[in-house]
């Protein structure tokens, strides 16, 4: 049983600093560079089924970097466009505006940065100014009535068997539900995950509720928001 002192200690958790956004971006780039160097000297992978997704992430990073390098070679500069996966810049997915819902997106970014949209029926807490990052702080204090979505797209070529061809609107009833999940900042928040292939993209949509037992009305509200999800045309 926790003492009053322990409870006071827990409430001081915001004292712990967070990494700043430029360091976060640099760390991701450094990781990407190291993965690219690794694929130049390939070694046999012994990935097992559960890690297909990890392999996808690694492959996506590498493939995106190769794409960026090719763009430099042929064009001589970064040119962000709003077309499909063959381009350097890709539009993020997005949720159509609706009363009571907030949204932030990465906008048009290279695929390696993960074009992402985050929507919530609560204020979205800035993650150190780094748009598109996992909404840890929003989820940490998500009220029971809260709903948060994060949608990210990748290249269809990186699809694993976890990704199923689907059409929009996605259905929440197709989601895999995880009451507990890695990186979970709040044990009351389950994750509903849909991994789909839509057009030329793989699409991962994670939905989070502020309760392990969302009501029918909450599920309906979430489905309404999911109906407003749009993915860039290929």
């Amino acid at each position, binding site marked *: 049983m926790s003492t009053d*002192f*322990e409870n006071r*200690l827990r409430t001081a*958790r915001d004292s*712990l*600093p967070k990494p700043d956004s430029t360091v976060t971006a640099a*760390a991701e780039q450094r990781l990407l560079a190291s993965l690219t160097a690794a694929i130049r000297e390939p070694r046999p992978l012994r*990935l097992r089924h559960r890690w297909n997704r990890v392999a996808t992430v690694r492959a996506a990073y590498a493939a995106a970097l190769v794409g960026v390098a090719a763009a430099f070679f042929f064009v001589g500069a970064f040119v962000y466009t709003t077309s499909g996966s063959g381009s350097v810049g890709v539009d993020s997915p997005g949720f159509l505006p609706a009363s009571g819902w907030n949204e932030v997106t990465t906008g048009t970014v290279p695929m390696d940065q993960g074009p992402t949209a985050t929507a919530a029926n609560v204020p979205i807490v800035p993650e150190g100014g780094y748009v598109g990052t996992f909404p*840890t702080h929003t989820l940490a204090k998500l009220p029971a009535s809260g709903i948060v979505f994060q949608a990210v797209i990748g290249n269809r070529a990186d699809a694993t068997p976890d990704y199923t061809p689907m059409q929009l609107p996605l259905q929440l009833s197709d989601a895999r539900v995880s009451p507990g999940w890695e990186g979970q900042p709040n044990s009351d928040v389950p994750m509903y995950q849909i991994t789909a292939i839509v057009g030329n993209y793989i699409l991962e949509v994670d939905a989070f509720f502020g309760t392990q037992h969302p009501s029918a009305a909450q599920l309906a509200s979430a489905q309404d928001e999911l109906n407003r999800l749009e993915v860039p045309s290929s």
Partner: protein
Amino acid sequence: MLFRRHWPTVWQVAYAVLGSRAAADDAAQGAMISAFAALENFDEQRPLGPWLKRIAFNRAVDELRRRRGPTDRDLYQAAESLSAAGDAPELAAGGPIGAAVAQLAPERRTIIVLHYWLDQTRDQIAEILDLPSGTVASRLGRALAELRSLLEEEHVH
């Protein structure tokens, strides 16, 4: 998604050990690169989060050791002969409890941060620190007692 989901916590583990933003930046980046390079050796039956935190912890301890010279393998014992690795200025500015946590030696600071602020269970901490669960419980108790004592001193003065 994997990087973004785990990066903040990995960084905070490194910060808890090192007490310095710059040192945590380096240790956390190194930890993520090591972890992704070794993914194919990772046991699929285990959760990724504690494994990443363990790599970050070990990386930070290595950095601490490099800065302070050779010490015992056990950071807890080494901490007896070390003052805090960094003065954790951001933590110290975070109110009286943050300031007291900043004053703890690295091992005690880390165990408090993992349990009370990063919501790791004692078993998870045992995995991260590579210690028996019972040892974690006793060390957590001692860290808590020291923290309470620091706060009482602060209150008296």
